[in-house]
């Protein structure tokens, strides 16, 4: 366990080098939040949209912007495709600690950094602008479920990025997988439009896809809008993705031997 903690801490510290650049980037992230908040405010005009009040929509956007940093904005494909291209991966595979748990530990360091220095500043900005639903977080039950949902979301994000990285063993170029992932997070994840407001068939389908774990699910938990099905879906996907990641890592290890140095 100690090894994994050290690995996580190392990637946390690596991020600290770019602290001020990240703070500048946070301003941009907040700006995006304010743009979409303004858009939804103007569109809803104080009226309800589906099951969302105007205020709840604004809160949805604000929380989404903060959640994205914990679940979605991770190093691209966790650096795996670069390691595959440069051959570094052969050395990584040879280390005494398993490649998958080690990569996850490092990514968790990134997530911890992002929550502390990306999400928290955004929460503060949205609090000052009075768009963050802080009252929801006064209830310990909400806080507890939100933390669990966020952890599931972060895990899903890490695993999906891992799988994209692993695809480099077969495709060499992960650009398309990454772009598809980005687009799916936006639309299937409920980043631009809450899944709850989509037509019934689409809503039901998206609830059972892993992308809801990244945005829609944790945000909806915070806003008391989550379906029971979303919980089941989130849990099942984390387990399934872990299984696929383990299987794919084994396959990839054999593939490295075939390719040789």
């Amino acid at each position: 366990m100690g090894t994994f903690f050290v690995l996580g801490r190392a990637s946390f510290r690596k991020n600290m080098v770019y602290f001020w650049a990240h703070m500048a980037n946070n301003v941009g992230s907040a700006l995006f939040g304010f743009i979409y908040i303004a858009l939804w405010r103007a569109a809803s005009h104080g009226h309800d949209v589906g099951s969302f009040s105007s205020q709840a929509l604004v809160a949805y956007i604000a929380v989404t912007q903060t959640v994205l940093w914990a679940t979605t904005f991770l190093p691209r494909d966790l650096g795996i495709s670069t390691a595959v291209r440069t051959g570094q991966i052969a050395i990584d595979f040879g280390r005494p600690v398993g490649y998958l748990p080690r990569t996850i530990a490092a990514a968790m360091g990134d997530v911890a950094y992002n929550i502390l220095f990306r999400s928290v500043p955004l929460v503060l900005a949205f609090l000052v602008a009075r768009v963050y639903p802080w009252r929801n977080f006064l209830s310990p039950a909400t806080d507890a479920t939100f933390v669990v949902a966020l952890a599931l979301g972060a895990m899903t994000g890490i695993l999906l990025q891992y799988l994209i990285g692993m695809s480099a063993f077969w495709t060499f170029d992960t650009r398309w997988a990454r772009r598809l992932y980005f687009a799916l997070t936006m639309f299937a994840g409920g980043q631009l439009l809450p899944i709850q407001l989509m037509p019934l068939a689409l809503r039901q389908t998206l609830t059972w896809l892993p992308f809801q774990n990244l945005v829609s699910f944790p945000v909806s938990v915070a806003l008391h809008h989550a379906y029971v099905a979303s919980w089941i879906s989130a849990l099942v996907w984390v387990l399934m993705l872990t299984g696929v990641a383990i299987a794919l890592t084994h396959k990839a290890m054999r593939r490295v031997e075939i390719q040789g140095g």
Partner: protein
Amino acid sequence: MGDWIGVYKSVASATLRARLAYRWNFVLDLVFQIIMLIAELLVVVLIASAVHGIAGWSVYQIVFLFGLSSLSSGLYRVFASEFHGFDKYLVNGEFDSVLTRPAPALVVVSARSVDYEQAGMLVQGLAIVGYAAWRLHLWQIDGPILLAQILSGWISGGAIWLGIVIAFATLGFWTTRIDDLAPVVLYGPETAANYPLSIYPRAIQAIFYGILPVAFGGYIPARVILHKGLSPIWLLVSFGVGAATLAGAVGFWQIGVRRYTSTGS
């Protein structure tokens, strides 16, 4: 001056040949961009039609604005892509080699900047503007005047965006890294400009009229063209703002280049 155009042409055509070497990436890039922009537009259309317009703008008026704005910002993506990712010149010391070319650095970097893969943005921008204008029955009134107005708005917007992206790259001469500034200076304003600016808080509006004057590259011309309370004189104002932004940025760039010290080893 004539030589510079020659340099621009030859470097730009070399850039094109290099990019076309990866034909499938080129095609896929184009398709992907079109899908992303249409999806974003679709969300807006869905929202706007569910609530019958936003801030006094009807659905198709918003679509028109969206199209005109993406035409404007599309110009910087097609013709100034290297300024957009200017970090690499400064971090790797690549800018040294630019300075040795027989033309001003601005011309050389511009010529390398022609990114045909982004041209999809312009094609769909034109399609969106054309479609919205047709749905709003704008063509029936006076086709040539409408065309001239759209063109004038587009040129103003293009100049504004080119100015912004050149100024953005120039910041790199002081900070070296600029990619983390892009969401504030480029992406955020680019997204914001797709919608009626009146929906934003006053402080944000002030930025888009003053510091990063994207208002004049979409919102203001669209208001003139759609007869939303502005006289055609505002097209001239927008044009002036575009020219001033571009000229200011070029001046700023020259100060930056003089300040450049190589990072080379």
